[in-house]
């Protein structure tokens, strides 16, 4: 098994006719993902490298059987694309787009929750289940199939850790980038719950960063509900307060959201925290190999 994406994923890409959307959508297909459709208003009937384009997500669902949507449209239209996917009956929406206004995401978040739709992102690298499916921009070559589930706010930091795990001979059940925005569809807790019940996952690596309190809440959740070992890494110990560090959500507000507080929250609940990506990967490897 795996989580979020797998062999049953039937992908529709909103924005497949765009430069980025076609590059990554077709790359996902090359990896083995079942890419069934693209959606671009007024371009229905066209094709992108053999993939049919529809005007609406609803048509992609009824005509092509899409069950997962990847959103690659520009920020100012992205929330509308997510809403459209929710209305069309899509089960999983993965929003890659960076820079969607927070006030657009607030109602969309609740709309997805009320409809029972799983949303990943926005401002995320997507989800990869090695050997099965890749939806998003994660470079699959750095990951192999295995038993470590990864959940992360950051893309490149995940590649760094995944690569170190691979060099240690370890692979992944899935890799899920939840995104670096203040409001994301799925938090660490949502993904931890899925890994806990995924039989293929033996250990979970959680990669957090400054800002918000998703890591602190994850620490509490792990203590209560997660029986599998979890190893954490937090980025941003040297970040000054009040400065946005690249991701819209990576900001220390006053004294809250610091890396130190997050590390302490994990350690208080018995979760080991690596001081560097290498150390986190090494701790994970030593647990799995012991």
């Amino acid at each position, binding site marked *: 098994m795996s989580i979020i994406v797998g062999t049953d994923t039937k992908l529709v890409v909103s924005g497949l006719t765009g430069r980025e959307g076609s590059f990554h959508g077709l790359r996902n297909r090359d990896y083995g993902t079942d890419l069934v459709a693209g959606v671009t208003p007024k371009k229905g009937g066209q094709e992108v490298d053999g993939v049919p384009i529809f005007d609406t997500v609803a048509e992609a669902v009824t005509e092509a059987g899409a069950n997962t949507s990847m959103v690659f449209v520009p920020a100012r239209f992205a929330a509308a694309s997510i809403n459209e996917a929710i209305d069309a009956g899509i089960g999983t929406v993965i929003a890659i787009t960076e820079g969607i206004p*927070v006030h*657009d995401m607030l109602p969309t978040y609740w709309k997805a929750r009320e409809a029972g739709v799983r949303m990943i992102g926005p401002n995320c690298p997507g989800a990869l289940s090695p050997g099965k499916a890749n939806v998003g921009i994660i470079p699959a070559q750095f990951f192999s199939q295995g038993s470590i589930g990864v959940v992360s706010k950051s893309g490149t930091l995940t590649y760094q850790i995944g690569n170190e795990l691979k060099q240690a001979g370890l692979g992944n059940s899935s890799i899920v980038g939840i995104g670096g925005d203040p409001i994301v569809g799925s938090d660490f807790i949502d993904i931890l719950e899925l890994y806990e019940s995924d039989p293929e996952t033996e250990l979970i690596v959680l990669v957090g960063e400054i800002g918000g309190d998703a890591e602190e809440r994850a620490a509490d959740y792990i203590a209560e509900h997660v029986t599998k070992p979890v190893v954490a890494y937090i980025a941003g110990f*040297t970040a000054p307060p009040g400065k946005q560090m690249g991701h819209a959500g990576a900001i220390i507000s006053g004294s809250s959201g610091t890396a130190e507080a997050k590390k302490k929250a994990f350690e208080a609940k018995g979760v080991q925290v690596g001081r560097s990506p290498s150390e986190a990967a090494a701790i994970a490897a030593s647990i799995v190999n012991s």
Partner: protein
Amino acid sequence: MDLLEYQGKQLFAGAGVAVPAGEPAASVDEAVAAAERIGFPCVIKAQVLIGGRGKAGGIKVAKDVEEARTHAGAILGMDISGPRGEGPFRVHQVWVEEASEIDAEYYASVILDRSAKMPLVILSRMGGMNVEEIAEKDPGALVRLHVDPLVGLTGDDAVALAVDAGIDEDVVDGVAETLVRLYVAFNHNDATLIEVNPLIVTSHRRVVALDAKVTIDGAALFRHEELAAIEDPPEDPQERLAKEKGLTYVKLDGNVGILGNGAGLCMSTLDVVANAGGAPANFLDAGGGSKADAIVDALEVITSDPKVTAVLFNIFGGITRGDEVARGIIEAYERVDMDVPLVVRLDGTNSEEGLQLLAEANLDGLHNAKTMLGAAEQVVELAGK
């Protein structure tokens, strides 16, 4: 994007929230003229983006023209540091405002609660001190209400909140109406924070916003031309240059210049350098898919900081290709005056091609490192103290 107090008050006024009459001024003469129009006594307030202005001497009452001149002269050009050591920020503008007679000081805010994924309205009958102090002194004096973004803040909810907070009975309706208007302002302006501290009751029992702290979501500025137009360029020369070039850069106070691709990896690079005993000079995320031009721009920004004595490039290529990064570095050596050593750690997509290109170019002062930790140790040694 943070608004200055007076910009926040203008935004409040647009939403129908009562604010004292006032005028901004950028020189002593302008301030004096504004004071004469407004009448005496009036208040001269430094316009900087930090709290603690009063304690720093940035807010003064003027009883007459001479005092207005003296205070404006003292405040304009003053450097003010924040309570957590932020800044210092130089005062370029003052806000001249009619003096208010205060009966009561409350606290009101609307913030984006990231955990709950909802706006949170906070009200307290104890204003004039910061919210952490209120929470410490009397946690019961802070009342909170999460607002369903699909519904909004209703008048009934606001009245119930005001009653709950122990607001004086005769101004419950006035405070509730102010909360509803602040919530509307929060939504309409794509704010992530609106704080009014104090929200006062005047001697005539009017509810007036005496201060304004407003943060607007930068991602939404495309639909607020009027707000985008008042955004000042950063004061720091490197931050200003980076912004012009569309790079994500944050100035820090060390001497090790840093470039990473991706926000998470870049933050992690700063931490690893600090663990190795170094002091990072900046955060610079070259972004996914960094092309050669972006690398040249990034090196130009980093090396324009005179404190930088060595630079670390930490690239783990996913979408970013190592050969593109290497071409950017080679080009930067031709176009930018590279007088500090550069440690390059190149891994991931096309990193071998990239390393090959760098080896062939045989650049002065360029060092290769295989791992992130090794690169950090090497750059710290090269940077010196």
